[in-house]
């Protein structure tokens, strides 16, 4: 198989992400792996060490630094052109917002099969299978892709980064892109909120609606701080404004892998578990013994989560003093 990995050049942790995608391509297995690098790139020498056959550097001309965000409509013509020239069997996009948009829309334009957030890929007797989450991530669904190009995005952390290196040839693909989006005016970008540090935290206190109300957040923030950790929560706690958007854990928020994750009053819904399932140890506190979270935890306490939190705060303060 010939596989193209389409990646934007302006994302943080780009190289590590591309290595995960290369690993997925290698395991299928594939004969040729090429990278379609989209946009301006300051550190091209880092890409030159990746174990790839070729890098097509899609330089967007004219580059307009005032509008750093490219709408899918602006990039798609360049990708269509590159597909026609290179004819890969499969194209992998990042599972972020722009990658998912490009994947689905390109599949329509190239008449290919498309799956987003794939967790496992396999090829058996010339058939190509893709597995992904379904029923709010409570189940897995397996599909056979029937029409090339197979266009995919991968679920966060589905494959480990590949550790080998290479020396790919770089081909400059200069595309004139119309940077005018005729349907939209007065575009303004507010940069990402400062990260809460959830992704690098060693200890995370993850709260659900079971903690009762927004007023509980004060002592739970204190608990997280005393543990030297960070506070995060389920989607409902964020939508109810108990926590900030960048504190959301789960499939539509942060996916974390701390040493210790203490969940308080979470039911254990599928989308939330996606966010914490890579934790080394999960401790669940919930007063409902039937809550799904216990099935996914290493340690469980069936009790009032606020009372347990209060007791932990007392113990941590004693230790501190």
């Amino acid at each position, binding site marked *: 198989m010939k596989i193209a990995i389409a990646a934007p050049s302006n994302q943080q942790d780009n190289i590590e992400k591309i290595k995960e995608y290369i690993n997925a391509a290698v395991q299928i297995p594939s004969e040729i792996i090429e990278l379609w690098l989209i946009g301006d790139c300051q550190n091209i020498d880092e890409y030159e060490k990746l174990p790839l056959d070729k890098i097509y550097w899609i330089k967007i001309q004219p580059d307009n630094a005032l509008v750093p*965000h490219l709408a899918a409509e602006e990039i798609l013509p360049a990708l269509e052109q590159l597909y026609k020239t290179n004819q890969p069997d499969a194209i992998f996009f990042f599972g972020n917002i*722009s990658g998912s948009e490009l994947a689905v829309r390109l599949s329509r334009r190239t008449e290919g099969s498309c799956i987003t957030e794939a967790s496992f890929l396999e090829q058996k007797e010339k058939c190509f299978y893709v597995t992904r989450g379904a029923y709010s991530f409570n189940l*897995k669904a397996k599909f*056979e892709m029937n*029409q090339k190009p197979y266009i995919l995005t991968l679920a966060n952390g589905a494959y480990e980064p590949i550790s080998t290196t290479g020396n790919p040839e770089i081909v400059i693909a200069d595309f004139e892109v119309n940077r005018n989006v005729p349907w939209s005016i007065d*575009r303004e970008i507010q940069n990402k909120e400062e990260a809460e540090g959830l992704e690098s935290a060693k200890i995370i206190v993850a709260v659900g609606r079971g903690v009762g109300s927004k007023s509980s957040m004060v002592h739970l923030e204190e608990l997280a701080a005393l543990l030297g950790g960070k506070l995060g929560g389920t989607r409902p706690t964020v939508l109810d404004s108990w926590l900030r958007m960048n504190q959301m854990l789960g499939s539509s928020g942060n996916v974390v892998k701390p040493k210790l994750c203490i969940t308080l009053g979470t039911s254990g819904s599928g989308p939330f578990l996606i966010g914490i399932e890579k934790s080394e140890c999960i401790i669940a506190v919930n007063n409902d013994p039937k809550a799904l979270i216990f099935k996914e935890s290493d340690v469980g306490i069936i009790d009032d989560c606020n009372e347990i939190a209060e007791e932990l705060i007392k113990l941590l303060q004693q230790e501190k003093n």
Partner: protein
Amino acid sequence: MMKLLVCFKVTPDMDSITEKEWNRVKNETVDVSFAKKILGLYDESALEMALRLADEAKKQDMEVELTAIIVDSDSEDFILKNLFAVKYSKVININCTMDLRFHPDAVSEIISAYVRKNGTFDAILMGQQASVGDNRQTHLLTAEKLNLPCITQVSDMTLTDKCIRVTSQIDLGILSQTVIRPCVYAIGNALHPYLRVATLREKMASSKSKVDVLSLRDLDLVEEQLQRDKKSFVSLYRENKSRNCNYIEGSTPAEKAGILYETYIKEALKL
């Protein structure tokens, strides 16, 4: 007149389904028909967002037509009728007996056919994802089929000088833009996520409103053509990834917290 279309789905409440029931998955399906039916989480936000746009439009002396559309064969009538009570002008149910769980191509084809038959809508709103299928493709395919732009991960929409000002999440941060042409909006984590509650008086006033039921034939669609998919659904299964939960016993929260602290937390704090 501003025409708004909201596409929505009614789904089982996944949080009410237990581990035991998930494990009953067999072959290609799992029976979740007993579970309480709710509006798709993001679709509910889309329905509320359109109502808020309509409220603003009325304040600016604009006429608004609000249509809600569902592609389903078996929807709870009270959920659909409630939409009249919160002031939707039309509620359309497109009857389709096909298994649409993993077929966003067919769903987007049906929505596009309805739009083509009913003139231009200024905005087509839908949730960015709905449980059961979790396909995350319908909005983008609808936009492609109707040759419209698509803004995803929308968190807020307001009306400024009779144009829609949209706030959406992008990979770099938050993008605000004014949209001056028809567009598909996929609603993500919205500022106002829940549908407003209708008063008893509003419910009584709308009790005689009727949901329009359309067939595929009404939209000049043929089921056999819709069934063609570029991927085939093979199987459904429950992944066994459970950890072995060790329960901490004790007579008071203080005792349990003490055991937790001594046995697990102290060790983690040393790292």
